[in-house]
């Protein structure tokens, strides 16, 4: 067992933002051949502001101080309940699909708090469809996510519905409104 540990748990810079608060997709080391990851490693990096948290993915900015954070990072505020590859890393943006894909008109909807203004925005998680899975910036967060029995609040569905093909490419997080104060 000790030997096994030594062999298996040599750290590797990870695939995704492996926060301990992240969901099943976030736990995908996805390392072909058995590499292991330490959840703490990439998280620490992102918190130090040293990059997007995804090695080999350059940080981005919206250019708008009212929309803070890095859209190429799983930490970005709008991604509070996203599950999939970030379109920002795939030729799209946080609110646009990559060229050649089709944005699903049928989506699930959540709310996330913008740290710049403290408001809860209504976010539509539109999937982009029709190209091979992007493979970059796998991110899964589940704030307020609900089971399959309530699909409009569930992120484990391939939401490429109503598109010409249901092949999943990546996910966006589009602002469609601001929630009322409660």
């Amino acid at each position, binding site marked *: 067992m000790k030997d096994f540990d030594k062999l298996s748990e040599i750290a590797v810079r990870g695939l995704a933002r492996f926060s301990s608060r992240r969901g099943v997709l976030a736990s995908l080391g996805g390392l072909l051949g058995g590499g292991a990851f330490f959840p703490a490693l990439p998280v620490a990096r992102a918190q130090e502001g040293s990059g997007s948290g995804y090695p080999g993915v350059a940080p981005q900015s919206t250019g708008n101080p009212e929309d803070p954070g890095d859209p190429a990072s799983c930490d970005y505020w709008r991604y509070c309940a996203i599950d999939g590859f970030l379109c920002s890393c795939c030729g799209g943006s946080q609110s646009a699909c990559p060229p050649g894909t089709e944005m699903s*008109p*049928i*989506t*699930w*909807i959540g*709310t996330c708090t913008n740290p710049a203004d403290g408001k809860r925005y*209504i976010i*539509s998680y539109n999937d982009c469809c029709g190209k091979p899975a992007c493979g970059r910036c796998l991110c899964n967060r589940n704030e307020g996510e609900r089971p399959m029995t*309530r*699909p*409009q*609040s569930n992120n484990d569905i391939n939401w490429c*519905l*109503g598109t010409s093909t249901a092949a999943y490419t990546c996910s966006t997080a589009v602002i*469609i*409104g601001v*929630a*009322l104060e409660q």
Partner: protein
Amino acid sequence: APGVENPQRAHLNWMLHCQGCHRPDATGTPPGTPAMAGDVALFLQVEGGREYLTRVPGVANAALPDDQLAELLNWTLSTFDGAHLPADFTPYSAEELSAGRKRPFVSEATQIRAALREKFPVDVKTGNAQEGSGE
């Protein structure tokens, strides 16, 4: 709009609870998720239609309190099919929704919808005769 105390809240509830499947403009994905735009208020013109809208699963199952649900239904009717809203329309009340949602339709929703739509005025029935159960 009648029976809509807070239109902004109603619209936000539409976003959060309905539009993901029904699309922002309520055009839906027929036949499974039928279009509501342009004909949903016609249910109010046929017998049984008013009750149907309180028991159809998408309404009955929505994660909203009765009063906000009534407001949302009233808002949906006037927003997406105001042209067919009867002049004497009595807005849905919280009590009416509370009663209807306790007895939600399941698969029979499809047949009931089809039967109700048969009674729609001919000119609109033929124009948008998609059947479905989702709502």
